[in-house]
């Protein structure tokens, strides 16, 4: 594994939630420290959170250490590289450490395949090949590993990608807990596609492909100490087919992102900052299922900050919005697609929602994972 790959696995300089399984909310074991001390002499959970602390770790430790061996730029979730002959490849890696390993609607196996595929899909690439590296702690039940491996195989088959290389390591039980998976992926880009977080412009429409908050709530519902009854299942899915259908409309799609860790809130904030536009959302247009609202109400969480694993946010020119939305709705993974807002000239770098009562509120970048409130 190269340095660049392990680097990306710790989180991203853009602060984006690239590791869908990397930091799920609500189990302290897997939690990101939301309020860490800045000058920490040791690694704390927050350094893997994909937020400000991960960014600092990369900017102040990894990048200086790597020097000119690191590519210019901000080491995004998926890099686009030219390999000669006019071919552009997308390359991405991600590590998956979700707890519990199995949750309603999936397991770390599906996440590991779909997560990396989605990182490639979000630059408009068609994913082709994946690597899988397993880090297993001694004592893991063979039957559990078997279930996870089956899930990896099934997800890759369903997505039409080939698993072409792999690795297995075992650590003693004091060094790990269960099954960790790293996947890296390669995909190819079409000539006419230019999808980047910096391309949102004033007037663009903000679209979402379906219901918000399913994955995060599904995982929370079976966390130790927080178990609550729900029929909600994780939405984990590979999104490249949906993206292909959107690109096929011929619309000039400006930005695509999957709102994983940190949820819709984190993702839109990052796009607003990267593109220096403001965003206005209409709260009533956000597709939040009642059960997600209820679970979040119970736990004192904001559905907009809860992780999704099979949804994408798209920023498209206003004149193409209806056409792209139609194409999304025709695809099974975009049936619940909605227009939720608009990119505006005001409050650049910030996301603001009009509330149901007619007030406004700032939709903020989460500091870390959300913690259940005391009351």
């Amino acid at each position, binding site marked *: 594994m190269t340095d660049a790959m392990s680097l990306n696995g710790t989180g991203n300089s853009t602060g984006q939630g690239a590791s869908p399984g990397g930091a799920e909310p609500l189990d302290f074991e897997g939690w990101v420290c939301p309020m*860490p*001390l*800045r000058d920490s002499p040791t690694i*704390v959970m927050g350094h893997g959170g994909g937020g400000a602390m991960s960014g600092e770790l990369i900017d102040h430790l990894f990048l200086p250490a790597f020097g000119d061996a690191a590519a210019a730029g901000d080491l995004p979730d998926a890099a686009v590289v030219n390999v000669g002959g006019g071919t552009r490849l997308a390359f991405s890696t991600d590590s998956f450490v979700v707890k519990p390993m199995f949750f309603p609607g999936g397991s770390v196996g599906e996440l590991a395949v779909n997560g990396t595929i989605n990182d490639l899909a979000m630059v408009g690439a068609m994913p082709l090949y994946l690597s899988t590296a397993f880090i297993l702690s001694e004592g893991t039940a063979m039957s559990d590993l078997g279930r996870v491996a089956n899930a990896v195989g099934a997800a890759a088959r369903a997505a039409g990608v080939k698993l072409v290389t792999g690795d297995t390591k075992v650590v003693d039980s004091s060094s790990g807990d269960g099954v960790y998976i790293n996947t890296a992926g390669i995909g190819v880009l079409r000539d006419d596609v230019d999808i980047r977080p910096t391309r949102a412009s004033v007037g663009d429409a903000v679209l979402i492909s379906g219901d918000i908050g399913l994955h995060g709530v599904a995982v929370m519902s079976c966390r130790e100490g927080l178990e609550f009854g729900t029929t909600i299942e994780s939405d984990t899915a590979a999104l490249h087919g949906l993206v292909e259908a959107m690109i096929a409309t011929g619309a000039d799609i400006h930005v695509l992102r999957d709102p994983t860790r940190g949820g819709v809130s984190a993702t839109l904030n990052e796009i607003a900052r990267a593109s220096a536009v403001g965003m206005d959302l209409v709260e009533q247009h956000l597709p939040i299922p009642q059960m997600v609202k209820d679970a979040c*109400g119970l736990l004192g969480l904001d559905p907009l900050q809860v992780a999704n694993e099979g949804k994408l946010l798209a920023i498209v020119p206003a004149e193409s919005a209806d056409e792209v939305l139609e194409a999304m709705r025709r695809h099974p993974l975009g049936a619940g697609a909605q227009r939720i807002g608009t990119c505006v000239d005001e409050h650049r770098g*910030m996301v603001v929602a009009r509330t149901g*009562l007619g007030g406004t509120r700032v939709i903020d970048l989460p500091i870390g994972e959300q913690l259940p*409130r005391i009351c």
Partner: protein
Amino acid sequence: MKYLDEFSNPELAKRLIDQIHAVTTRPWAMMEVCGGQTHSIIRHGIDQLLPEGVEMIHGPGCPVCVTPLEIIDKALEIAKRPDVIFCSFGDMLRVPGSSQDLFQIKSEGGDVRVVYSPLDALKLARANPDKQVVFFGIGFETTAPANAMTVYQAQRLGMKNFSLLVSHVLVPPAIAAIMESPTCRVQAFLAAGHVCSVMGTQEYPPLADKYKVPIVVTGFEPLDILEGIRRTVVQLEQGRHELENAYPRAVRDEGNLPAKKMLLDVFEPTDRTWRGIGMIPQSGWKLSEKYRDFDAEERFSVTDMHTDESPLCRSGEVLQGLIKPHECAAFGKQCTPRNPLGATMVSSEGACAAYYAYRRLELVETT
């Protein structure tokens, strides 16, 4: 959720807002006591919809915010010990002490766990008989019954490896302290509905009478809050100062009698320091003599630890409604949710954090 969504109905809210506008003839300043209400007001933009001059002052009702630094430092000291499993509600973990926080303790090998109920901590104690399990028992009257029940059960089960680090605070003494302040601007209170669902309403008429302030027991959904504000304005406009219950679906006058009985048995009143405000006499609960063996401060000998608060932080004035969060020079500069100087910037229910999260837009545009 039944009894929840009905209380966010935009049309009904509009009607209440219109009624508030219709009855208001001059400026009024009222305080919502509870942090949950502050969160809801800012989250839904309710204060933007009120008549010019009707001002919501955000009170000291976030239990995370008012827990003194000294108690946090005691928690850290206890959590460091190798024989301890330290359990807490989630949002206390983000509160920095003088030099560390609970996450740092954990990364250095401390066993720090989040539980959703103190009874889960008791379960942990039973499952780990060779460890000392400590629960961080903070909060207002709302969270106290569950903590009391836990200690009661621990005693009944004869458990020697469970204890409670207690920092309970009480609403009525805080209302009195705010009204006694010479710079007090508060003309009325929205009382905290969930506190009253435990304790009932009987402590409040004497306060309304003594300080000549309307006190309206108020819930947490948008319609609840608007109705509380409406009733408060009506009282103010009519020159009345009475206790009213605008949250009858959760609050009975006598409160929750079994819970109150349990509280009286397990706790007794004590002087308590509030972060940013200082000591308020008889404003908290500690374990009563009968349950003193379960006091973590005694068990781990941290009773003598003392810590001072940050001199830059004006959270005390924010908590008393003397300034708005953004009027503090450190707001959004030296003090952010990432690097909070004071507790009001820590919890999402804290006034400074709520302003930072939801109000930065207008604040940014004016600076």
